[in-house]
């Protein structure tokens, strides 16, 4: 078995960015909705 | 206990009598079933795929659609006649009402399937004679599971907006286990596998039915109480 590590960092980056977007978007939505409470 | 069943039967009979008088709903559901079978036939390339590969899926999906239609009709009937409100004023227990509606729905769907199955055999030339009892039992078990949950939900969606849309949306995830198990078992039966290979699936179907009839009976009062 060759020891070459697969070059797929693109997917990792995409996943980390997408997760950040979803989490931050939801956090922002909650922040707006709880303003003034 | 006997009160429960007796009242359930009274309610079921009332619903079924209404059905038999007009027959429109039954005929329409039957026509729909036939149309779905026909569409499936034209949806495949006869030279590319053997019928036997697709047959289990075609049968089970067709019956699922027919059952959905039947549940919708049950709910429409409720809406028109407001029979449910009248029923709730009687001293009949909520559980009897649920069981009665379940029996009526099952009878309706069962009749459609009883006519649909021979048509399926004719259209797709699938030999089922030798496995008919097992097949019938399998279809019955899967239908029971599907209709049990559907009867519960159709009582719920009456008071929601977009009710005709809500029922399928809520119902479909719950139809997957009976559907998958039925397709798996049907495939075994159609390809002539020995019966005990399907037994596991049938047992699971029975478990699903018991769990969800029990759960629905328990929860039904919550959907109709004031």
């Amino acid at each position: 078995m060759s020891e070459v590590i697969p070059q797929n960092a693109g997917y990792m980056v995409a996943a980390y960015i997408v997760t950040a977007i979803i989490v931050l978007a939801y956090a922002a939505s909650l922040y707006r909705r709880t303003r003034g409470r | 206990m006997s009160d429960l069943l007796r009242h359930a039967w009274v309610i079921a009979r009332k619903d079924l009598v209404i059905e038999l008088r007009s027959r429109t709903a039954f005929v329409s559901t039957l026509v729909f079933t036939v149309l779905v079978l026909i569409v499936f036939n034209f949806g495949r390339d006869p030279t590319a795929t053997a019928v036997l590969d697709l047959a289990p899926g075609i049968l089970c999906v067709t019956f699922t659609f027919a059952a959905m239609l039947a549940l919708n009709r049950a709910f429409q009937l409720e809406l028109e006649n407001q029979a449910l409100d009248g029923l709730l004023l009687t001293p009949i227990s909520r559980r009897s009402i649920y069981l009665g509606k379940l029996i009526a729905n099952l009878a309706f769907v069962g009749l459609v399937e009883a006519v649909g199955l021979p048509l399926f055999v004719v259209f797709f030339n699938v030999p089922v004679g030798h496995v008919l009892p097992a097949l019938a039992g399998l279809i019955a078990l899967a239908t029971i599971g599907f209709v049990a949950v559907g009867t519960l939900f159709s009582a719920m969606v009456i008071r929601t907006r977009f009710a005709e849309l809500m029922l399928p949306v809520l119902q479909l995830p719950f139809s997957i286990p009976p559907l998958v198990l039925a397709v798996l078992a049907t495939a075994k039966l159609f390809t002539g596998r020995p019966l005990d290979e399907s037994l596991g699936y049938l047992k699971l179907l029975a478990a699903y039915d018991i769990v969800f009839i029990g759960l629905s009976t328990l929860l039904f009062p919550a959907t109709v109480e004031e």
Partner: protein
Amino acid sequence: MTLASRGRAVTLVALLLLVGVYVRALAFTPLERFQGAAQKIFYLHVPAAWSAMLAMALVGLASVLYLLVKDPRYDRFAAASAEVGTAFCVVMLTTGPLWARPVWGTWWAWDARLTLTLFLFFLYIGYLLLRQAVPDPGVRARYSAVLGICGTVLLPFIHLSVYLFRTLHPQPIVLKPSAPSLPGVMLVTLLYSFGVFTLLYIGFVMQRYAVGEEGSHV
């Protein structure tokens, strides 16, 4: 401090710690030899899955409790947990295929776990749609509780059905086990991420619960 402001504080701490997870996972955790960099998606995907499942289990529990005692706070909690669970479910559904594509060679596979994810998502959506469609709060609470309980009971059946379905149609691609035995460094990153996602769940639910307080459209 109000519930909302405490929720905001918890969320803020969780978000800062999440940055820590990112840094640790990306820069300080070694590459996995067979899956490459894509394996690191695992540090987000699995904790998100945990939060999504936890959220659904709590929706189920709160639903049972609501039907038993009719305390509207349980209903409000269920609504909050469902919305938060949906958000984590979306993370799970997006990171899953992004991980599957490089590692399994396909964006989607009808295996037990991914399919369960999809069904969890449909249950959440159905639950939220139902809540939107019922104007009366008392009726809404009861109906949601019924759906919540049925949905939670359904999940093990889905898992079982999909598992049975899969074993009959084996994948030509060999599935990589997700976590055979993690070396220490990776395990620590994963556990840290679990903690952060749990904290994030708590902060989100606190805020969402607070939003529900004025009761207009929970």
